[in-house]
């Protein structure tokens, strides 16, 4: 059976499944229940002050009958006094010494404030600290959370301040509400962070009530943007993790967060360079017991792949993530429809006809049965038909051999420049320089 133990920047955990700093990790009772259920680690809900309770605070986006495709909150950080939290953190660590217990922190951007909180928290015995530079609402108004997380210089400086006092590893949690995630990731690394975790929630408004015209959620008839998370944000999070993982200037371990609901999602984050993953929405939807299938599913997957340890999986797909300019322009696939599996719903036909390249034809065979056929010479290999196809195995995208050798945009431009240095590329800036 594969070994699931991991180490994130020196923090050991029995498995890569952690609960993210969020409502599920608000109290010792909850974190201990989570550890009993099998979670390998937890990031304690952000400590700080003052205590403010917003009511109501959550909303969800349901999609075609499936509940909680996305989740939105306007809740703030901890709703309990620091002393109570510290006492429970101490008790929890004592009961579960082998689990990873990290505490999330957020204070005003002042050096002495960071020193003070770091010392207090480390004094009760924790495995690491996570700096919350991501919360997009409530705290940002006071220069904290994403307000400081959106400015690389503030990220770097505050990381440095925390590191000055910290004896345990410091993880910096990044906000996705920024154009280039690597800018703040690099700033965290420059500030001495031992690891980064991402993503925090994305600015969002869950909905508008068609009867009352109130926002969803609303607080006494008024709404404000919240933070979005849950399955819907996974692709955004995965890209940001991958961008950080492949950037050598970031160069520190990653804890992946964002829409992870099961072992498959988690495995994708591990492949894209996360050493561990953090989960919140799925646990809020189904309870802590979901970790059982995460552990079981990942273990069976690793066994199936012949990998002895989860560490052999981490980052295995990072090298395959690149820039568009490095993609092979001569690579081609075409759609092929398997009549045995096709149920003739015609969804591929209309998708192609109306919105792509008009190359899926409708035919009738000698017995009068309808069927669909791809005119392969016109197919651009866009995948759309296979995406809308509701049936497994009906449409496959088949690689067609290219008569030309692989050539990327960057290679193409370099080749043109080499042949004709005066007329190379179409970058006018570069042309002037030549």
């Amino acid at each position, binding site marked *: 059976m594969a070994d699931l133990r991991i180490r994130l920047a020196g923090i050991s955990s029995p498995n890569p499944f952690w609960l993210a700093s969020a409502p599920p990790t608000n109290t010792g009772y909850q974190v201990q229940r989570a550890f009993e259920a099998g979670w390998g680690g937890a990031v304690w809900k952000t400590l700080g002050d003052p205590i403010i309770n917003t009511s109501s605070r959550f909303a969800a986006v349901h999609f075609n009958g*499936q509940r909680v495709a996305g989740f939105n909150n306007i809740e703030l950080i901890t709703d309990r006094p620091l002393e109570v939290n510290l006492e429970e953190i101490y008790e929890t660590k004592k009961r579960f010494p082998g689990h990873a217990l990290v505490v999330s922190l957020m204070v005003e951007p002042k050096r002495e404030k960071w020193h003070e909180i770091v010392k207090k928290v480390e004094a009760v015995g924790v495995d690491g600290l996570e700096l919350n530079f991501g919360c997009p609402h409530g705290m940002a108004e006071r220069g904290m959370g994403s307000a400081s997380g959106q400015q690389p210089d503030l990220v770097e400086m505050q990381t440095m301040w925390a590191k000055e006092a910290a004896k345990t590893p410091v993880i910096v949690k990044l906000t996705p509400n920024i154009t280039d995630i690597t800018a703040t990731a690099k700033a965290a690394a420059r500030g001495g962070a031992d690891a980064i975790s991402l993503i925090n929630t994305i600015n969002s408004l869950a909905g508008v009530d068609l009867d009352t015209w109130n926002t969803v959620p609303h607080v006494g008839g008024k709404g404000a943007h919240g933070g979005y998370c849950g399955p819907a944000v996974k692709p955004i999070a995965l890209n940001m993790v991958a961008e950080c993982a492949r950037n050598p200037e970031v160069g520190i371990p990653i804890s992946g967060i964002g829409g992870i609901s*099961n*072992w*498959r999602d988690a495995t994708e984050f591990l492949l894209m360079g996360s050493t561990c993953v953090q989960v919140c929405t799925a646990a809020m939807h*189904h*309870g802590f*017991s*979901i970790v*059982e*299938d995460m552990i*079981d*599913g990942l273990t*069976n*997957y690793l066994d*199936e792949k012949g990998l002895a340890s989860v560490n052999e999986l981490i980052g295995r797909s990072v090298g395959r993530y690149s820039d568009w300019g490095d993609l092979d322009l001569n690579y081609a696939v075409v759609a092929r429809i398997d009549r045995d599996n096709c149920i003739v719903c015609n969804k591929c036909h209309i998708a192609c006809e109306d919105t792509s390249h008009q190359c899926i034809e409708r035919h009738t065979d000698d017995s009068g049965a309808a069927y669909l056929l791809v005119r392969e010479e016109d197919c651009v290999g866009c995948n759309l038909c296979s995406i809308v196809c*509701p*049936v*497994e195995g009906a449409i496959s995208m088949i690689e067609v051999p290219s008569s030309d050798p692989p050539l990327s945009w960057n290679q193409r431009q370099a080749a043109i420049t080499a042949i004709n240095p005066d007329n190379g590329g179409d970058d006018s800036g570069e042309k002037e320089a030549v």
Partner: protein
Amino acid sequence: MGDSLSANGAGLSAEELRRNFAEVKPGMRPKEAIEESNRCLYCYDAPCIKACPTGINVPSFIKKISTGNMLGSARAIMDANPVGASCSRVCPTEELCEGACVLNHSSKPIRIGDLQRYATDWAIGSGKTLFQAGPGNGRSAAVVGGGPAGLSAARELARFGFSVTVFEAKEQAGGLNTYGIVSFRLPQSISLWEVEQIRKLGVDIRTGIKVGEDVTVQELLEQFDVIVLAIGMSKVPMLGIEGEQLDGVYDAIDFVEATKTELTEEMAGKRVAVIGAGNTAVDAATCSVRLGAANVKMVYRRSREEMTAYDFEFEFAKQDGVEFEWLSMPVRIIGDGEGKVTGLECVRMRLEPAEDGGRRRPVPVEGSGYTLEVDAVIKAIGQTRYLPLIEQLGIEHKRGIVTVDPVTFQTSNPRIYAAGDVVFGDGQGEAMVVSAAQQGKLAAYSIHQTLVERRERHG
């Protein structure tokens, strides 16, 4: 009769017979399974778990299907129920897990049985071994009877590290699942896969050995630390009417069992009367239809309301074209000069309220005698007990129903435990395969507790 069913009075070809006895219900297709598994709410403290006699963690195994963790799903099922693949096909799910599903109140219940079959079919197809035996604990157990209860006990004892030997009288283990449930509902290969899973744990399954004949009770008691008695039930009892010895009178258990190994033309074109209205009677009736009988009637002295077969069995029989003679009691089987069955003489019955307020009592209607012209009579009026063996074991019983402690499944001999049909009856136990499996598990747990844990505690 179903459209695809071939039975026109003439003999059936081997291919038609094979088709008639092939599993009726197709397995779920991948898309169906994904859609259905994602519909499960993953309830906390889910009622379906409590409704399953073996306590399968239903939401967990369904969640695993939805995440593509098929091995984990199959393990979750088979861990709780060593005959979980058979049970996915034979359990009365609408009375158990699916009946308890909370979605009954707002939509349709989750198709738990079908999903369970989907996961276990995957396991069968994968060729994987799901469990391993525990490290040897130096203790030995003899399991008498390789049916659901015996196999279940054997599997759990092997996982606890016992050296386990199963003694099975028939050629193959699996008991009712291998021989007693019609092929078109439970193909024999499913049951034999379950047997194989248990054999792979190092359990020595000795088939073709009758305890009490080929090996004595005394030998077992000398050679093993503990005995689990899981011998089930025996043949159908005598009706006690004239003509029972005639050629063309069958025991339903034997009759169904024969179809599990070979399909013959014996019933082709015949008119068949099945006496009884339980699940075995339905099995005998539908088997007759599928063997090509020209007409099949179930004869029952009470009415539809008192019929003990599950509703879905009754529906199934109707779909197969089986006819029903309610309120009719056979009084004589009529034969011709050659000793072959030619008719079944019956009298009409009426139901009178029972004095104690129990089940209504059938009373013959005077002068209502009539004769059904039939070529075969199949008796399905219950099963007798293996009394001689039970007597040899010298354990307490009530007319062959072995008395056990309801918690430990220990018999009056502290070294003998009993589970399954051998303890069913007289208000004790349950008749379902899934209950037998659970009893086997529980017997194994209490054996482990008594022989290993308790001793360890006392040094």
